[in-house]
């Protein structure tokens, strides 16, 4: 399940109001307004900064939706 923290980071980066946007496990980047290839890198950097973790490009590549991204974050945080 998507944490409020992750959702807030994504929304802050895209200047979106979290209360007006539905983001769940199945949500894919192109479904979120503003989440394009240019902003993608910024979102990943913002997540890394907020959680104090680092992702490898190939790890991010495997995340086909926000649920997978949350799982990646969780796996890094628990280490």
């Amino acid at each position: 399940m998507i944490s409020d923290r992750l959702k807030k980071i994504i929304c802050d980066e895209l200047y979106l109001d979290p209360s007006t946007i539905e983001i769940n496990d199945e949500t894919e980047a192109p479904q979120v307004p503003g989440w394009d290839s240019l902003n993608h890198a910024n979102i990943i950097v913002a997540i890394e900064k907020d959680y104090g973790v680092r992702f490898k490009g190939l790890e991010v590549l495997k995340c086909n939706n926000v649920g997978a991204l949350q799982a990646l974050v969780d796996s890094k945080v628990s280490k």
Partner: protein
Amino acid sequence: MIDFSSLQGDTLWERWQYFAQTTPDKEAIIHYRAAATPIRLTYSSLLEAANKFSLYLKNIGVKKGDVCAIIIRHNPDFYPFYLGITGIGALPSVLAYPNPRLHPDKFRQGLSGMAQRSGLDWIFTETDLEEIIEPFVEDKETTVNELFFPLEWDLNRELSDEAIQELSEIRAAIKSDEPMLLQHSSGTTGLQKPVVLSHSAILSHVENYGKSIELSEDDKIVSWLPLYHDMGLIAAYHVALASGVTTIQIDPFEWVLAPILLFMAASEEKATLTWLPNFAYNLMADKLSDEEMEDISLESFRMIVNCSEPVRTESHNKFLNRFKEFGLKESTLGAMYAMAETTLTVTQTEVGKRATEVSIDREFLSNGKVVITNDETKMRICVSSGKIIDECEIKIVDEYRNEVDRDGSGEIAVKSISMFSGYRNYPEKTAEVLGDDGWYYTGDIGFLYNDELYVIGRKKDVIIVAGNNIYPEDVEDIVTKVENVLPGRVIAFGEDDAELGTEQVSVVAETELKTDEDFNKLRLEILRAGMSINVNINEVYLAPPRWLIKSSSGKPSRKANRERLKNKNNEQVWSRK
């Protein structure tokens, strides 16, 4: 360096066949994938598969001169299929695979516009898109004969002697001045311009460009660029295959998510050449961590060519500072000026030398004069796009298309042996840009200094985001239909994003709404409207009725309103950032 005069073949097929016969075991294409073993196609295996596709295409009724749209993701069968189309004299036309955010209706609408303008005869795609494209193909008005799924074809059977003979006869009838491919100027849904190029235009370009970059048999090209983009298709695909050089192809969708892939492929395969739009320099320098770069060496690169959007000195500096410790040499930082209308390249920087930079007086430049200055408060650093390649000419002209003085700036006009003959089925657009004297008026602004071209801006309003051209009209047309936006009271324009090293799309829309809550909702709807045509609107400005200044034509003026927005004290305008 390759001796191009010794290469045989007056058509692309003949040239590929020449390499299949003379260097059969040399790798033509390395199909590179994340976390998987690369698939390697030699010149002989590529041509063998292409022959089978040619026969299949002939048997389903594709004829010489037919335009074959290809909408296929990164796939090893794409390459022989593309060659197979050429092998029966038909014209391959690579179209962008739809991004999931693009609304199916908008995708069909774009296809319909292209089909009418370009005269698409066949569509070849993947079964995943059948549901979306089928209704368009069944439409009685469409020019498209049928939809096929070539990745599903069974190509295991060997060609009979009779089939080989039939294909040989077809190929013998293909002349070098006949059309070889059709590419579209990159854009969004409504305003794509089809450019048809002949075999001789492409082969001349390969030779002239190959000489300018001192292409050798040992070079290896690596590219993540999409093949519907001229830089990807011509520089990283046709130049390689028509010169007998190896090209390493990476999926653009994968590269965007994992930019390290380019360097992994380059490091593993010892690539020597690549082409990148300016934003990629910033993205890679910002994103790639030391951990990811651990086993990477960039020493094999001899040239990295910046193209497709304005070249920025800050981006070159950032890229070099980030990656020099991994073997990147300063001398690799090249640049070129290119466009689909001249097949690709017009100018190219020298091999073994970083693209030259000059400091120009900004005030003089705004008045069309090029004056070198050392005054940091007035200087604008311009990066060279290099010298004119062989069999190509440039002149800089004023608004009346008269040549300016040697120290003047103005519109760049080009003449080339590899020039297009006009946009297909688009005489009015052709007449706008192609003079009776054979010069193509590019709409780009620049100047020549010490025989090198410097591109400094655009006459047209086109927005270049990460190397893709976006036409403001397309964005305005979709935003004006959003509920609570006053119809016709919208402008779209590009705003510079120095951090990303590219432009981003901004929109100003008039509305009668007044509260912050309503503004936020409207902003979201405008972003969604942009998404439906696969355009990411980065900034939305909402203004009260009658805020937008009109031009003499009665439409809101992009230039005047952009200037007005610069006034930060304008409290009437709402924005989220």
